[in-house]
């Protein structure tokens, strides 16, 4: 069988074929694409690459962490929890009945400025344990009704606050119904401290989402009053408290912007707050807090991101170091064929 040269047979048959025209040949057209040979970059995790990647991450992350931490520390915040304190002694065992009663809800609080607070100072109310993201709650609204006067009776999604006295409610739904209705009045040295409640909501909401021709109608007319009432003569696009409230919070602990104080507050200044404690969070043990806070480029006071960045950056630095050590102690030559399994273990096949 030594004469078995593979090519000789092809010659015999091929000679006739070769003469035949090749136009209809099924030979696949050659292209880099069809042969899967497109130019490609093949990154490989070499030790140098890995160490520099870790170093790069730590170089980027640690400064960011430091900067964010500083930004967070620079924010001055005054938090005053008042929902328990504002309940008179005689109601302290039955707060729900207090809030449902017609008793005067006025409550006075005193806040002391610890550090210089540069304007603008944002006034928030903070609710805890209030599930604005509850499924029944978030669904209970009608965006088309809010936007457009013509669909004022589109309340199908608003149950159970869709109709009152057989009339559609505008704005309908649980969200609007439960609008927050505590009010705050600030005075500094017995002087009224102006709180600007303009432009506390998103401009896009005012322009597009809440109609200029939609006015509250039949609102809070039912047996159960959930929260604030709205002035029927003011269009929804200008009801900024409602607009803010309707941007439902993502988490059960949240702040909502109440207004802005547009002057600096000096250290040790004492602010008198007169608040109306109307909103019922007692039925579910919700906390209410009043927050005055400055802001930084990173938002409010929250150290988490800074710490996270420092941790990740530090970890990467540590990894870079340990990889360097490991690599120096026990290097492996890349692509060394002697590491291949069949070379390592000559007996195995």
């Amino acid at each position, binding site marked *: *069988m030594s004469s078995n040269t*593979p090519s*000789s*047979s*092809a010659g015999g048959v091929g000679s006739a074929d070769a003469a035949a025209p090749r136009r209809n*040949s099924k030979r*696949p*057209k*050659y*292209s880099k694409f*069809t*042969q899967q040979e497109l*130019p*490609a*970059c*093949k990154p*490989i*995790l070499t030790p140098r690459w890995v160490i520099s*990647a870790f170093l790069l991450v730590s170089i980027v*992350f640690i400064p960011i962490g430091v900067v964010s931490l500083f930004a967070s520390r620079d924010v001055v915040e005054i938090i005053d929890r008042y929902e328990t304190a504002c309940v008179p002694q005689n109601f302290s065992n039955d707060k729900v009945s207090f809030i449902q009663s017609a008793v005067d809800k006025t409550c006075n609080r005193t806040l002391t400025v610890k550090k210089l607070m540069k304007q603008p100072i944002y006034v*928030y109310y903070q609710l805890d344990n209030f*599930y604005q*993201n*509850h499924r*029944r*709650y*978030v669904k209970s609204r009608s*965006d088309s009704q809010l936007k457009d006067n013509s669909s004022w009776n589109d309340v199908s999604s608003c*149950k*159970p*606050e869709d109709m009152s006295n057989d009339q559609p409610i505008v704005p309908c739904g*649980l969200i609007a119904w*439960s609008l927050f209705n505590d009010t705050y009045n600030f005075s500094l040295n017995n002087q009224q401290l102006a709180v600007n409640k303009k432009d506390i909501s998103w401009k*896009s909401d005012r322009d597009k*989402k809440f109609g200029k021709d939609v006015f509250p109608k039949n609102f809070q007319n*039912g047996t*159960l009053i959930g929260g604030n009432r709205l002035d029927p003569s003011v269009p929804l696009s200008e009801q900024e408290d409602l607009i803010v409230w309707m*941007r*439902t*919070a*993502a*988490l*059960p602990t*949240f702040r909502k912007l109440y207004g802005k104080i547009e002057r600096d507050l000096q250290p040790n200044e004492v602010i008198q707050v007169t608040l109306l404690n109307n909103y019922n969070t007692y*039925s579910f043990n919700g906390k209410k807090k009043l927050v005055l806070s400055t802001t930084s*480029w*990173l*938002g409010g006071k*929250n150290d*988490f*991101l800074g710490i*996270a960045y420092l941790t990740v950056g530090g970890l990467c630095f540590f990894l870079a170091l340990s*990889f360097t050590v490991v690599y120096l102690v026990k290097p492996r030559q890349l*692509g*060394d064929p002697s590491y*291949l399994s*069949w070379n390592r273990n000559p*007996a*195995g*096949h």
Partner: protein
Amino acid sequence: MDSKIPVENLFSIEPVLSSSSRRSISTHSKASSGNSIREVNFSDLGSKPVRYGSHGAESETYSMSQKEINDEDARLVQINDPVKTNERFEFAGNSIRTGKYSILTFLPRNLFEQFHRVAYIYFLVIAVLNQLPQLAVFGRGASIMPLAIVLLVTAVKDAYEDYRRHRSDTIENNRLASVLVNDHFQQKKWKNIQVGEIIKIHANETIPCDMVLLSTSDPTGVAYVQTINLDGESNLKTRYAKQETVLKITEKEKIAGLIKCEKPNRNIYGFQANMEIDGKRVSLGPSNIILRGCELKNTAWAVGVAVYAGRETKVMLNSSGAPSKRSRLETHMNSEIIFLSLFLIALCTVVSVCAAVWLRRHRDELDYLPFYRRKDFSEAEEENYNYYGWGLEIFFTFLMSVIVFQIMIPISLYISMELVRVGQAYFMIRDTQMYDESSDSRFQCRALNINEDLGQIKYVFSDKTGTLTENKMEFQCASIWGVDYSGGKATSQDQEDGYFVEVDGKVLRPKMKVKTDPELLQIAKNGKETKDGCHVHDFFLALAACNTIVPLILDTPDPIVKLIDYQGESPDEQALVYAAASYGFMLIERTSGHVVIDIQGVRQRFNVLGLHEFDSDRKRMSVILGFPDQSVKVFVKGADTSMFSVMDRSMNINVKRITEAHLYSYSSLGLRTLVVGMRELSTSEFDDWHSAFEAASTALMGRASLLRKVASNIENNLCILGASGIEDKLQQGVPEAIESLRTAGIKVWVLTGDKQETAISIGYSSKLLTSKMTQIIINSNSMESCRKSLEDAIIMSKKLTTISGNINNTGGTLGTVLTPVALIIDGTSLVYILDSELEERLFQLACNCSVVLCCRVAPLQKAGIVSLVKKRTVDMTLAIGDGANDVSMIQMADVGVGISGQEGRQAVMASDFAMGQFRFLVTLLLVHGHWNYQRMGYMILYNFYRNAVFVLVLFWYVLFTCFTLTTAITEWSSVLYSVIYTSVPTIVVGILDKDLNRRTLLKYPQLYGAGHRQECYNKRLFWITMIDTFWQSAVAFFIPLLAYWGGTIDASSIGDLWTLAVVILVNLHLAMDVIRWNWITHVAIWGSIIATFICVIIIDAIPTLVGYWAIFEIVKTGKFWLCLLAIIVAALIPRFVVKVLYQLYTPCDVQIAREAEKFRTLSESAAVEIEMNPILDPPRR
């Protein structure tokens, strides 16, 4: 369904096969004591399908003609009377419809078919659940959209395919044929042809329906048809019209009669019927029918009567799709899917239990809770709003959580996998290295769902003839009257053109050149002057005449030169006729009555007085020639065993012995041998034979056996002229291919019908066997001796392979390398072993052997051997073959590969993949198989991860919403997540990523072991991925949560942050694992991230949605970007670290090869000249 026919076919002929093999036992046991030359394996000659098929059918007709066709099972066709024929039964018209749908039925039928898939049912159930008002988690549109998209895409694809089918049907139905109407042939559209009509076909026309031949232009009623459309065989087949009808048509007599034939069936090699004509009854067999789709060749016209039309024709009954198998990886994957479903149920249970606890603890507050408000006060009486009691609420919560977390079960994965497989198939088909020049055939992917199995093959079962060899027979040497002529040299170099003859100024030349022995050529040229010359003359005359070859004259570009192409069913015969032509005995013309042979430039006409066709019982054929000088001779050609038993005892013993010795040496060279004999017939002998032959060939009952008897009577007392050795060449690259497959850890078993010596010599030349190997040969002919030889063999193989056992204590399972053992076993022994308790022993033995060679195996035994292995291991098996006898094996194996070669297309039709050459198997397995496996394995893991991360992020959020299944991520984003945001990159990577390049994979076949060791997809990887998923989802969720805790953030904004974070994370995770970045990968990954941003922006620009403008508000803040960056880095660090450690300190082979590829390309580029597949032509662009 298509795939079943051949098997049935084989079952029907099984008794024949086993009886013949049993017969060979006796001859074997006799022969094995002395000389081991036994018989030429004639049954393995070229056209196996026809042979087996027609043989089977023949025996069927034989039995049926005695049985009668029952009237209930028959169809009655009135010849030339379609009205009466169709009166009682409405037979199908001849119009065909391959289109599945009409405009009306498209929608319901297509939907019905699509919903056969479990995945779609899951989609549907979830979508329906979501429509219940209590459970409406997503809006209507959002919940139906993914299903709608998938259905729409598939429907459009189906509609387009169906449209093309309809168009081709219309063309087909409107072709014209001439049909006898009122005694005149008229043109009629195909679709209007009815059963019973008489149709006339002209040369080169396609036959419009299945018809019984009535008459042809040949006075004896022969017609030649090409069945390439039917079974892919390009050679011509002869069909006969019955003598009773031939004359009627030619003499324009009105013909009338009744054909009683079987009901339409899909057996293209079988047909049985009776024809009543002029009160006579004539039986019809498969050689009397011409089938739709065939072409009439070499015959001026043929007339027939339509018996099956339209969808009842055999070709239409045979057209159905490829077999479907399920890949191993998918089977493994399904068990992980079950785990994921359990996980899904666990998540849903956690949510509902928590919800239950919460509802119970707050049950008193629920009525007035501003965010719950159980009571509806708007009506006069207070009633519960959307509250159905504690138990039901929990149940609803559970169902809702199933809806929300539905993509935990990665249904999109099934669709992506299909797309990826289509892409992989595209590249396999387009691979120029798997294109076969000689047959102009590309690689074919017939089964689309087992691409990745190609990367895990452990056993390859290969046929020999036509698979390892080319099945292009080439005449090598001859032994004539005891003289060996084997000094053949290729003529193409020595003489320009080989042999040719000139007639009327035209040059006739055989199409194929054969190398000739100069000495023999000289003797042949000198004519009959010497005694040698006389023998040589007779020998070549026998080769030229004793066959069923039909010569075709072909035009060449040169008008003077014509080529003679010999068409026939058997490649061996072709080779012999070409050889005879090269020695000056050129067959010019063959009709049923005579042959014209040009002998050394002189044309001689011989009358063909009789022809006994080959059958596998006699293993020989004969032809009776009337010479111009009125003498009559019978020429016989056949397998050595069958020939030596009918030779003249008084003949020169010496010549016989020398011939036998030559035969032995030929077969040990791997040549296929045939013995030729002749005898002169006296007038009385001839007359006796003639009358017997006439009687037998017109007999109605048992014609085949009568003819066989007549043949056996005349084929005796032969004078042996000599023997021929035909080489079946090894295909190009076979030894190298087998070598690489072996290095790759794949066990190659060769199963052949050839005899042992031929098989062993082919084994050596294909490097399957090496001189270092110890051969264990098992030839037994009883159960007991089988058991004994198996036990001895096991002991021996253990001894040989476990010498190292004492040293490495591993029990010798790995020790096969020390002394490789080859097991050679023959079909006779397998008869006793298969399906008995000895199977287990054989398997044990075979596991110890590095090579297994089975010779003389019948088709069903091939399947038996495959199933023997398949049953006992979890390893993947692949069967490769080219003929109908390999069909059962191909279907039995996990992966079936068909070689589209010389033999019919049955193997290809039954196969999952088809290709032109055996050596492409290396590219297919080592390159594409490896790639596909790696890609698919990664893709499945990635898809699990991708969907689980998203679901877990949703799940974490649910824990902060009183377990009420609110999603901060908008419903549209969660729907689009697996459709748009993340689907394209994984598909692109699944199609295009390559862990190693082709050259490396071919250079180190051992890298294929990655598939054997299941390196790319296993339980461990799955769990690691799931842990990683857990971490990543936690990071993606909790970093924003903590960063925004107690802040003013609203749900839509943080939802957008989570959406983007998860999508970027998931895409970068993929990017980290991509091995080869080309521009398409870049576009897919970065494009997906950009597309996600765009989609989120679009969703947030719709004022009626809750999240209006949220994305624009949040991107203005620095916190958003810091969160994004922190999430991506923190989430990917653990994976990165593990990956680096793993790659640096426990690198797998693939990893090292990758590094070598990158860093050593320059130094080793010179060393990689040893390419497996040399590119024959420089690639053209």
